[in-house]
């Protein structure tokens, strides 16, 4: 930006800057000194060390999980609502027929690799059979382990 100013104005501005400039820098330095000498301001959480005390919020959406009772029975009726609600088809509800010929859940396949943890499946489930758990330590070297079968038992019915 070119401005037309007189020489006097130029020098006035120059000397003003010589005063205000260092002062403003000192202000900045005072903040960093304040932060440097105040260890209470350190906010770092030390993750692998604080594993024992680290808790996610109750609504935290981690991995999908099937709610099972002590015997391993689940509430899933293989209706497929979650499958339809999933934005990227990360859930396969594979139904089978039980001994009475009734349609029950055979295998609940969950493709964690593509799951975006949006929680729409949980919202869609009419029977509250699934939930998002608090698991966040999920790194793996083998992508095949990311395809999981959630149910331990066949569905009831």
């Amino acid at each position, binding site marked *: 930006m070119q401005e037309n100013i007189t020489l006097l104005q130029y020098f006035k501005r120059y000397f003003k800057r010589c005063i205000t*400039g260092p002062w403003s*820098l000192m202000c*900045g330095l005072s*903040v960093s000194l304040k932060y440097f000498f105040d260890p209470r301001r350190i*906010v770092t959480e030390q993750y692998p060390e604080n594993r024992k005390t680290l808790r996610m*919020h109750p*609504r*935290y959406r981690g991995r999908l999980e099937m709610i099972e009772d002590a015997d391993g029975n689940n509430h899933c009726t293989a209706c497929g609502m979650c499958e339809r609600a999933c*934005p990227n088809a990360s859930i396969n509800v594979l139904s089978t027929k039980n001994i009475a010929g009734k349609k029950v859940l055979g295998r609940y396949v969950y493709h964690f690799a593509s799951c975006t943890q949006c929680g729409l499946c949980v919202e869609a489930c009419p029977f509250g059979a699934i939930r998002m758990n608090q698991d966040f330590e999920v790194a793996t070297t083998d992508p095949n382990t990311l395809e999981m079968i959630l149910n331990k038992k066949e569905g009831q019915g």
Partner: protein
Amino acid sequence: MIQPRFSNLPPGFRIQRETNTEEFFINMGPQHPSTHGALRLALRMDGETIVELVPHFGYIHRGMEKQAESMSYLQYIALSDRQDYLTAIQNNLGVVIALEKGMNVGVPEKGEYIRVMLQELGRIASHLVFYGCFGGDLGGQTCLLFGFKEREMIHDILEEVTGSRLTTNFFRPGGSRYDVPDTFIPRVKAFLDHLEDAMRDYERFLSKNIIVLERSIGIGVLSKEDAIAYGCSGPVLRASGVEFDVRRANPYSIYDQFDFDIPVFHNGDCYDRYKIRIAEIHESMKILRQCIDKFPKDGPWRSKEKPVRLPVGRYYSEIETAKGLYATYVVAATTGEKPYRIHTRGPSFPHIAALNKMVQGHKVSDLVTIMATLDPVIPEIDR
């Protein structure tokens, strides 16, 4: 010796000029620390001075609009998180308001308060990232960490409320997915008190700093006419002297019930764009304080749950996100759960379009400053 003009310039370059120096071309990006994502800028340089700039988009074009055509509306809300990921919660609202217009459902008072509060928290989060990136791109790494330090607290609140730090997927037509927990209001209050202190330090750290002033005043000036012509919005437009904020111009949600100012600056340079965002953090804090005072203790937080089905028609919504005007245009050709087409107008796209206008004649270092003050989010441009 006068060099002949370039007989064939690379695509996009238009200025024909005769020089007696040698011009050369530099590519910034797609992997470059200061392009804020996968953006490629082709620079035509004369020494260190930029003659012309051509942005190349599409390095993060993910075909969201095509994908949306086979998704249900609810699923698109989840997808919209990934546009402007700095304030995903604001994208959600933009989509949801368009859906509400189609479904013709309203939101109870408490739901509106939740919306406004989360919106403003999102705005503060985005502006804090701006503060960090502005300082960081100028070379002061410490600012980057300062900005993110307070942002983490917002993430914490968001995670407690919505269940996720970034991709919230929280709002639904008629309200939101959950009620806020009891700890929400005290936490926001504590956060505001903390932020007030912190902002004082941060402004002291950067706002008056002579080097920052030297590097940002008079740099990347966008005149009022240009800003309007290029379709800029949000802080960039307001820094150029246009008082336009959707919250005031076409108030959505319950923004008309709050007392807040629309900060306007008139020089349109980098420093004004910086100041305006700092001022907006303070305005957002003002709105949040009013929300805390008026927050309804009980009452419904959402209206009756309905399947999300839109009648035939075209629905348009616009909201003011931290970056500017975020518009969603939903076309429903058949009554049903799936859109015929959803189009999103992200605020960053016009800003980058105006970039060429702003950087001509400046240095490479100024380009970094200007990019930082435009605060673009590239996935929102490319979608």
